[in-house]
């Protein structure tokens, strides 16, 4: 509609609301009941805390990996079989 030329500078309320609802679908704590709409501020708040949690998990996993590297004498070389094995259980 009018959105093409003005999209960058004047996002409509509806566009923003739609994007926020899409976020709800990605949040594990909020999408148990996908039909109920959480408020925009709840979704944003949950998004922030979810991202912070993920950052923390990456930090913890990095620390764990660092310990594993420390403990093991050598690290296995990268190979296709290893990667396939690694990924075969993740969906």
């Amino acid at each position: 509609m009018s959105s093409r030329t003005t999209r960058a500078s004047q996002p409509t309320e509806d566009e923003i609301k739609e994007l926020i609802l899409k976020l709800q679908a990605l949040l594990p704590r909020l999408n148990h009941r996908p039909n109920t709409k959480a408020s925009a501020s709840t979704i944003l708040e949950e998004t922030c805390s979810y991202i912070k949690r993920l950052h923390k998990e990456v930090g913890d996993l990095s620390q764990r990996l660092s310990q594993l590297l420390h403990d093991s004498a050598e690290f296995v070389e990268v190979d296709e079989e290893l990667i396939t094995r690694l990924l075969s259980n993740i969906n």
Partner: protein
Amino acid sequence: MNSRSLLLSPNPNSLKSRFTKGLLRALSRINKHRQQPRSSREIRKRHRLIKAAAYGSMASSVGNRRAWSRALLWKIRNQTRRGYAATRNIGSSTRQLSMKKRICDLQKGNNSKNRVEVGGLGQVDKLRRLVPGGQVMHTCSLLEETAHYMKCLATQVKVMTRIVEVYNIP
């Protein structure tokens, strides 16, 4: 049945595959270069290297397709550059100035046009700080980038968890 066979042969070009390969390579490199760290300072340094490798591999796997990955790659490249050439301040500082100007302009624009329903601009600001490159994005782009960033982070965590599992068993 069908889904199981899909699981067994992951798409080699998928984001997950590229990320895993990149991260494993980086881990091999980190492991080769370092002697077994003795001091806690060296252990902390290796922890930081691994964390940087994780984010770097993820950003590389996404490439230039996303604003957040571009921002992250730019930051990583700049950190490396700063480490090499302390004398070449001109290039990086003018870039920093133009970034700051973009942030100011954007904030002016955002403040006047977006005092909308978005339950408190405070939360959008919080989000801007969490997503790489978020400071210079318009609100719409920020929300789109956030969705993609969250998915990639979740993938990152899954893959790293799996790597830890595999290497945990000697």
